[in-house]
């Protein structure tokens, strides 16, 4: 590439030299300018070569984290929304279940304490509010982590990376000014270099920005990942060991109560009343079916998979990175699909 540039430049110089009124206009000043231009041409050629080499060996100047980290942040916020609603509704769900039992049996009273002295869901929350709050706080922490990664991936503060870029940037900057002075009659071809040099300054600055940003993101992920993994694993265990059992038995109980009440009372019901009751039973059946799928647990599991892929992509070598970023994108797409289908199911479980 550089040999082609050099050959073209030499051909252009020969062409200019033979034209009357070109920058080799008078014998004395023309010689000096020609030598000056040749020097600058050589410098530009060297710089272009250097920049191209740096770009190639640095894996090209692309913010490789912006898209996947932005997607990770967005999916995290959606997941937090779905799971936050789920956690917050656990006690009202149990109050509903208790009132359903009372509604189905006209002999039962609404009580805060039952005949055995045990509190009902009206008398005492089934899940302690402090426990629910702790889980919501943990979720929010994961959201903050994803938000910080997003901020890092989208920073546009080259001033932070000025030190790295200063030396080369200063040299390129003065070269740019020199060409700006040269443009016009002194060297009509000088202005052709101004645009590319300005572009190069921007490109090199961006490359230092990308490299420093990459390192910051790698460090942030390496530092935060173990804690995030721990929180998500605990949350998934919560879902599997506590809340999925609560929900699957609650949904089944609701269906069984409605069905049994209908069977006992159906001969006393009008057609409209039977129809209304059967619609309730249908809704309860849908909830029971949704509860079996362990929707909240699956949301957390898919988030854990995407986070694991993000950690692997950040820690990978330059050679392995494209493959790991592709794996991350796949995990993010799978997570997106899971959230969409599971959000609808979780909605059925929230009362």
């Amino acid at each position, binding site marked *: 590439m550089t040999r082609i540039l050099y050959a073209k430049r030499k051909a252009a110089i020969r062409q200019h030299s033979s034209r009357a009124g070109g920058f080799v206009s008078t014998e004395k000043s023309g010689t000096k300018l020609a030598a000056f231009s040749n020097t600058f041409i050589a410098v530009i050629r060297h710089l272009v070569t250097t920049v191209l080499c740096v770009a190639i060996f640095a894996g090209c100047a692309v913010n490789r984290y912006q898209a996947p980290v932005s997607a990770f942040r967005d999916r995290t916020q959606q997941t937090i929304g779905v799971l936050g609603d789920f956690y917050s509704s656990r006690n009202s769900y149990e109050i509903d279940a208790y009132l359903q039992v009372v509604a189905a049996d006209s002999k039962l009273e609404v009580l805060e304490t039952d005949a055995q002295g045990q509190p009902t869901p009206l008398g005492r929350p089934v899940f302690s509010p402090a426990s629910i709050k702790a889980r919501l706080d943990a979720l929010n922490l994961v959201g903050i982590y994803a938000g910080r990664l997003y901020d890092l991936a989208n920073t546009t503060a080259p001033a932070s990376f000025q030190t790295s870029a200063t030396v080369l940037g200063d040299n390129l900057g003065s070269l740019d000014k020199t060409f700006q002075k040269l443009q016009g009659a002194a060297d009509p071809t000088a202005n052709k270099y101004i645009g590319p040099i300005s572009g190069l300054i921007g490109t090199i600055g961006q490359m230092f920005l990308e490299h420093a940003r990459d390192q910051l993101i790698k460090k942030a992920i390496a530092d935060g990942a173990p804690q995030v993994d721990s929180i998500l694993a605990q949350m998934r265990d919560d879902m599997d*060991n506590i809340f999925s059992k609560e929900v699957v038995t609650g949904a089944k109980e609701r269906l069984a109560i409605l*069905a049994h009440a209908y069977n006992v009372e159906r001969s006393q019901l009008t057609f409209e009343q039977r129809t209304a009751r059967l619609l309730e039973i249908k809704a309860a059946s849908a909830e029971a079916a949704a509860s079996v799928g362990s929707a909240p647990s699956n949301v957390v599991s898919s988030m854990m998979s995407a986070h694991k892929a993000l950690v692997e992509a950040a820690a990978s070598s330059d050679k392995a990175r494209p493959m790991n970023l592709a794996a991350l994108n796949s995990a993010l797409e799978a997570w997106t699909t899971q959230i969409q289908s599971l959000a609808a199911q979780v909605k059925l479980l929230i009362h």
Partner: protein
Amino acid sequence: MLKVDTSTLTDVINQCFDYSMDGRFDLNQQSAFLAEGKRLRGLLLNLLSAQFDDATPAVLKANKQLDAVNTSLSNATAVLAKTVQTLNEIAALVGNLDKLLNVAASFI
């Protein structure tokens, strides 16, 4: 720390509810399964977060009992043939699980 086998308890509860909607049982038997299922679910909500000291005899016994009841309930033909006996086994289980709440070391 030891915990009650809440996975098996969940299965037992759901089987009780299923039999409460099973037309092979008469209405009284369906009512009985529904009532036991509701009692067991109330106990489940408390036992989900209960922890017991290691090797607590009452917990070990309850877990074995849970396993036995679950096995009985999983065979619908056997349950149909011995409905009264099965319901009595469930009632005994309810009683034992209820007693566990008084010996729990902590509730997390």
